Every structure is written in structure tokens, then in C-alpha cells.
């Protein structure tokens, strides 16, 4: 087989320096360049990841022993509430938006997003919302009703903290909606001529599905939270049973967004993994259309499964059965993706670099979360394990084993494009090894804990669970340590790493057809599509014209 070759010379700006270099100040200002905004999203969300991670380790430290002996129960509840809120709304969701911002215009050959100013507005809502949320700790009244914030509990815990939480989520939700509009319009209207929807990279398909979900579901959460804030601050009783309100209605409104939110958090990284695996396996993606349309199927089904979070709440039997069946069906499109990734790797020439290791880790651990998800969909079993550590295990396998490993795979993959520097391979592997060990040590024992009878969101537990909890806690410390090689590697490589070639991985999607980092206007001339996004192993005419292009360092 010969190496697929590229039209990269065709598209490289003739005068890459012409429009000036990015100054570091640009990254701290209201800049409308999608690449600056993408990096702003990624760096900001990573900072919040570290903050949320410290909170997770404080929670785990409390849980090392069965008694309440590290923080007060009130602080404990605030810690897990903030941990969940930060990890969801300030880390995984904005990290997905960061990659989408950076990559979509480059992948479709556009010079920027459809609405650059709106794009910057969407980003600049995130830092104030995050600071506001964390400021609740300084005020001394941090939200402590869980990230689900169910009334009546959320109405009788600290009023200030709860109001801050609602405000912060409303800001973040608005930012998410603005971003989604931008992605959809950009994807529909700004593709280069000749790029039909079936030449679109799979990451773009995934972001289209994600953005549709954001647009359809986030407004419902906003409505629910506004009503909740009326109950909290103005004394109305929409959800307050003392005045005839119904707390179960809030749960419907909350989960109508928050279940799709799970797909908002995983679909972008399904997309990223679909980019990473073919490039580093040197094979075309297996079943392009199946993967592309399964994203849309997941997006649609994701809208009609929300009440599976309420199987033990106040819903009638027939509704439980309806939501059980829709939830089970989601396993089918998800399975299609996993089998397609495996088939893409099968028979390939897999480069086992940090990117690919994280992608393999993603597939391997996400499967566990997917399987436990099908188990949780079965109502009789869910009645037993709902609100236990089994659910905690499941959601972390999906969101850590899935989304976070996907984020790291994507960072290692696109870092050379974003910064123009290569990351260090050795420390990338150390990062991977520590992450996989820490992740499984932390979350695997939680399955058993939940089934044996440990409920979630508790600061004290039955002493029979001590030894398993100790394993979880030490695993979480390994996870904390695992971040250090990554942080040091990223900062050091960004400043002093070896210069990256324009296309260090020999990839075929358009973002690799410009300089690293791309010039301010992305492409000097509009790029021309010569190959499909995944045409590895397919010979092209131009290869003979430019034989030297094969000698690309790995």
C-alpha cells in the first residue's frame, strides 16, 4: 500500500505572515477569530476541570472513611454540587464547543464562523458564569442541593447559593444556545463549493447533531430554572407542594434538558474519535454513513428518554415502560459506532501514539458505561440501583471514560495544528497510563458499592463499604496526579516543543491543508477537495507529481 497523499501545497497561504501573527493579548480579549475563541474555550474549560477535579478529590477524601471527619456535611454537599455543575457546564460542554469552534471552519474550508461576533459573545459569557458560581463559596452559601437541584430541597437550602447557581446555569445555557446556532448555520451555509454533506468530516456531523439537541432542549431547562427562581425568590409555588405545586414537574423540565445534555457531552467526542481512529490506523473510516446517521439517530432518540432518570419518582407504569424501550434503543446506534471504530482499526497500521492510546482507551472504557447504561434502562433493575453508586459509576464511565478521554485524544491530535508545536510523546504515554489506571480504580468498585447498598450523595456510609471506598479514593488521587504530566507537557510543548509540520499525521481533512498554526484567515485561497476525508490507502493521481510528500515524519 502506498501512502495517501495530499493536496496540502495547493492550499497553503502564499504569504502566511501577511495578515500578521497572533499576539498573546488576543487570547485575553474580545477577539472574533474562531481559532482564538476555540483556544479560549479550551483553556478556560481546562482551568475549570482542574477546579472541579480538586473538589472531586475533596469529596473522595471525605469518603475514605465511613464517618464525617473531613468537612462538614453542608460543605460536603456543596462540594459534590459544584463538582458536578463545573464538570458538566464548565468543562465538558465548553470543551466540545471549543473544538467545534476551532475545527468546523477549518474542516469545511471557511474563513470563520457564520457569526463571529456572536461567537465571541457566547464565549465571554462563560468566565463570568464560572466566577459567579465559584464566588458562592466566598459568600459562604454555596449551592448544596445537588446539580439536579430538585425542589423542595433546593427551596429550603441556602437561598443566595441557589439563586447564584440558577443565574450561573442560565448564563451558561444561553452561551450554549448561541454557540449551537452558530455551528448549525456555519455547517449548513459555509462549506466550500463541492463539499456535499457526505464529504463532511464526521466531527462536523456529530456537532450538527449536538447543536440540534442544544437548541431543542436547553430552552426547557431555562424555563424550568426561571420558574424555580420565582419559587425561590418571589414565593410562587410552581414546584412547591405547600402551595399546591408539583415537584415532579420540575424533574421533567430538568431532565428534558439534562438527559440530552449527556449526548451534548458525548457526541462531539464520538465525532473526534471518528477523526482520530482512521488517521492513526491509516484506513478509511468503516461505514461512514452508518456513523454519520447514527449521530442523528442518537440526537433524536436522546430527546425522548429523559424520564428514565425518574423511574422511582412519580411517574405511572406505562410511562416507565415507554422510556425503558426508547432508552434501550439508543444502544443500537451507539453500538454501530463502536463496532465501526473497531472495524476501522482492524487490519490497519495503527500508530500507537498518545492520541491513539487515548482513543483506544475511550472505546474500551466507554463500552463499560454503555453496557451499564442498558442495565439501568431496565426498569426493575433501575428501581434497585437508582440514586446509588452504580449510577455514579455508570455516569463516570460515560463522562470520564468517554468524554474526558475523548477530549485528551483530541488535544493530542490537534495540538500541533493549534500551536504549531509537537507534544512530548513519552509524557503523553505516562499521562495515558496513569489516567487509565486511576479511572478504573476510582470508578470500577463503585458498581459493586451501589448494588450492595451504598446510596449516592452521602457524607457518611455503612462501615462494611470502607475497603472499596478506600480503593476509589486512592484511585482518585492517581487521577489527580495523572493531570500533572499533561499540564507540564502542554505548557512546555506550547513554548519550546519541536516545530510541527503542517500535516504531521498525514491526515486528509482540510484543517491539515493549511499552516500550523493556521493563518488568521485560515486559507489564502479556498481549498479544493481532491480526496474524501478518509481516503487512506486509495491512490491518487497527484502522488506521482509530488513523491517527496510521502516522507512525512510521524
Amino acid at each position, binding site marked *: 500500500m502506498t501512502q495517501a497523499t495530499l493536496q496540502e501545497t495547493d492550499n497553503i497561504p502564499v504569504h502566511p505572515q501577511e495578515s500578521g501573527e497572533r499576539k498573546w493579548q488576543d487570547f485575553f480579549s474580545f477577539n472574533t477569530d474562531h481559532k482564538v475563541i476555540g483556544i479560549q474555550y479550551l483553556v478556560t474549560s481546562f482551568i475549570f476541570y482542574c477546579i472541579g477535579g480538586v473538589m472531586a478529590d475533596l469529596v473522595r477524601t471525605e469518603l475514605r472513611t465511613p464517618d464525617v471527619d473531613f468537612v462538614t456535611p453542608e460543605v460536603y454537599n456543596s462540594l459534590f454540587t459544584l463538582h458536578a455543575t463545573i464538570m458538566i457546564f464548565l468543562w465538558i460542554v465548553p470543551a466540545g464547543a471549543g473544538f467545534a469552534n476551532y475545527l468546523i471552519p477549518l474542516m469545511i474550508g471557511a474563513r470563520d464562523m457564520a457569526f463571529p461576533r456572536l461567537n465571541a459573545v457566547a464565549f465571554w459569557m462563560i468566565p463570568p458564569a464560572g466566577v459567579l458560581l465559584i464566588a458562592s463559596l466566598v459568600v459562604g452559601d454555596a449551592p448544596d442541593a445537588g446539580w439536579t437541584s430538585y425542589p423542595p430541597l433546593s427551596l429550603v437550602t441556602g437561598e443566595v447559593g441557589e439563586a447564584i447557581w440558577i443565574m450561573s446555569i442560565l448564563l451558561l445555557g444561553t452561551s450554549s444556545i448561541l454557540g449551537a446556532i452558530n455551528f448549525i448555520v456555519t455547517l449548513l451555509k459555509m462549506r466550500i463549493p463541492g463539499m456535499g454533506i457526505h464529504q463532511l468530516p464526521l466531527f462536523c456531523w456529530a456537532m450538527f447533531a449536538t447543536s440540534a439537541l442544544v437548541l431543542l432542549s436547553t430552552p426547557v431547562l431555562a424555563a424550568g430554572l426561571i420558574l424555580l427562581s420565582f419559587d425561590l425568590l418571589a414565593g410562587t409555588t410552581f414546584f412547591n*407542594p405547600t402551595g399546591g405545586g408539583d415537584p415532579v414537574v420540575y424533574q421533567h423540565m430538568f431532565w428534558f434538558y439534562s438527559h440530552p445534555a449527556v449526548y451534548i457531552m458525548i457526541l462531539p467526542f464520538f465525532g473526534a474519535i471518528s477523526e482520530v481512529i482512521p488517521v492513526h490506523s491509516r484506513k478509511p473510516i468503516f461505514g461512514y454513513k452508518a456513523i454519520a446517521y447514527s449521530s442523528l439517530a442518537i440526537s433524536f432518540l436522546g430527546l425522548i428518554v429523559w424520564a428514565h432518570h425518574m423511574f422511582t419518582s412519580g411517574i405511572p407504569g406505562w410511562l416507565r415502560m415507554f422510556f425503558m424501550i426508547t432508552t434501550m434503543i439508543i444502544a443500537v446506534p451507539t453500538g454501530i459506532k463502536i463496532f465501526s471504530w473497531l472495524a476501522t482499526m482492524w487490519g490497519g497500521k495503527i500508530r500507537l501514539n498518545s492520541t491513539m492510546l487515548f482513543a483506544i482507551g475511550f472505546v474500551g472504557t466507554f463500552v463499560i458505561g454503555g453496557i451499564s447504561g442498558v442495565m439501568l434502562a431496565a426498569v426493575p433493575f433501575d428501581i434497585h440501583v437508582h440514586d446509588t453508586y452504580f449510577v455514579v459509576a455508570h455516569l463516570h464511565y460515560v463522562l470520564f471514560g468517554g468524554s474526558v478521554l475523548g477530549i485528551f485524544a483530541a488535544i493530542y491530535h490537534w495540538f500541533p495544528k493549534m500551536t504549531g508545536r509537537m507534544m512530548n510523546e513519552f509524557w503523553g504515554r505516562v499521562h495515558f497510563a496513569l489516567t487509565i489506571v486511576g479511572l478504573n480504580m476510582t470508578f470500577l468498585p463503585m458498581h459493586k458499592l451501589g448494588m450492595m447498598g451504598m446510596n449516592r450523595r452521602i457524607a457518611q456510609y455503612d462501615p462494611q463499604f470502607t475497603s472499596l471506598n478506600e480503593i476509589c479514593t486512592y484511585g482518585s488521587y492517581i487521577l489527580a496526579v495523572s493531570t500533572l504530566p499533561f499540564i507540564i507537557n502542554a505548557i512546555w510543548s506550547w513554548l519550546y516543543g519541536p516545530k510541527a509540520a503542517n500535516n504531521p499525521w498525514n491526515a486528509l481533512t482540510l484543517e491539515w491543508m493549511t499552516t500550523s498554526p493556521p493563518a488568521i484567515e485560515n486559507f489564502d485561497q479556498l481549498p479544493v477537495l481532491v480526496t474524501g476525508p478518509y481516503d487512506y490507502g486509495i491512490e491518487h493521481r497527484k502522488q506521482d507529481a509530488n513523491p517527496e510528500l510521502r516522507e512525512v515524519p510521524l
Partner: protein
Amino acid sequence: MEIPSSIWTLLIGIVLTLVSFWYGQNHGLLPTAASHEATLIDGLFNTMMIVSTGIFLLVEGVLIYATIRYRRRAGDNTDGPATEGNVPLEILWTAIPAIIVIGISVYSFEVYNDIGGFSLHGGHEAPITQEAMSMPGTAMAATLDKDQAGVGATPEREGKPPQLVVNVTGLQYAWLFSYPETGVSTGELHVPIGREVLINMTANDVIHAFWVPEFRLKQDAIPGRQSQIRLTPTKVGDYALICAELCGPYHGAMRTQVVVESQEAFNQWQQEQLVASEETLNKAVALNLPPDEFLAPYTREMGIHSEMLHQVHH
């Protein structure tokens, strides 16, 4: 001798199936099953565990095998084969998971029916609603026309009245149980073995959830609403009753005991509770003593002689 790959596939398939079946029955992940419903739910879980073990081993096996077998060898800068798909294979891996989840759905549906998930009748069960109205906490507009949530009578017992009714109220951070037939009120739940018990629940302040891991049943107790669980305990023992819905900082401390005991032990316990409450009643009756006798203990403390009290005109 070269072994053909079809033989290998067959062998691996057999080993995978055997391991899955063995692990699905011997996972040791569940506590004792102490109710009729628990046995049914465990059967469902074990089946899902068999299927899951198979899928897990298959995916991880293929992933690790492909990673090692198809890793890039040093110096090889060529691409792999340009396979873009295989429609029959894709149909296969769409159809098989679809059949598996439909199978699990049907089995779950059966189990859900068998544990009584479909035999709840809104507010029509008169004894429940009557009791519900007199339960503490339901002064909050309990809307009885809503569909009740929870788990009802098993198909065999449908339409028959429960053999024991217990009303449960959750409040921060305790459970209150009352037995309407005898008037006993306690802080821990006692139920006789082998008799169907109906547990009606509501909450006073915030949402709580009634969970006994050994019964495998859980139901939210929601202020302003009624919910219920109907179950038949099958194993004598003391189990933990846990609040499973976040209800405040001391959520983790909101737990009490469920005692499953023989009918005789249960009757005796009820008697003891009644005697205990009668004693309280007697104490109250004792308050109707003549004032001097009533005041005697207090006056003695104050150093006033009891005769002096007789002098006091009343």
C-alpha cells in the same frame, strides 16, 4: 499443524459463552434477596450480566487484539487496506444489538409486571386514601386524582387487599411508620415474613426515597403526593432502610432498620408497642390525681412537707 481460523473463532465463541454464563450467575455483586420481588429482579440482572459479560469480553478482546496485531511496524509508512465498509457486516451488528435490547426489554417488561408495576390504581384504593388523609404531612394539598407511583400487587394478588398496611412518612432525617390496623407508631419497620405488605408513603418536607437493598425496591416519598410499594418479605433478618434521595446535609444519616420476623414475633412486637403506648397513656391518666398527690414529687424537691399541701385550700 496450522489450525484454521474458523476453528479458532468457534473455540473462542464457546469459551466466551461459558465464561459469560458462569460469571452471570457468580458475580457476587448483589446482597441477600429478602423479598419475592428481589428474586425476580435478580433473575433479570443475572441475565443482563451474562449478555453484558459476553459483549464486554468481545469488544475488549477485539480492541486489544487489533491494537497489538495491527500496530504499525517501524519503517512502514504505508496505509492500510482501503476498506470503506461492509454492508452485510453492518446490518449484522445493527440487528444483533437490536435483538438483544428487544429481548431485554421484553424480559424487563415481564419482570415489571410480575413485581406488580402495572397494578396501581390511582386514588381508588379506598383504605389507602383514607389513611393517607390522616397521615401527618398530608395537610399539604394531597392531590389524590394523580396516578399513583410505585410498585403494586403482583398479578396473583391483584384485586385482593394487602395482608398488612404500613404508612410511612419521610422527614428530615427520619422515617415514621404507623400501622393503621393496630394504631402502632414507630421509628423502625417490622414486617412478618411471607405476608404481603403495602407500604404507603409520603414526605413532610422534601423528597425522600424509601430503599431496602435486600428487597431491591425503591420509591420516592414525595411531599404532596402518595406513592406505594407492595412486597412480600421472604427472609428473616435485620436490613437497612436507606433514604436514597438527597434530602439535606444529614441525608447519609437518614437510615433505620427493617426487621423481617416470624408472624408470632411480629405479633409480640406489636403487643409490646401497644403496651408501651398504653403506659404513656397511663401516665397521662395519672395526671388526673388530686393536686396534692400530683404535686407531691415536686414539692418534695422543693422541701415543702406533704402535710402542708393538705392544708392548702382548693
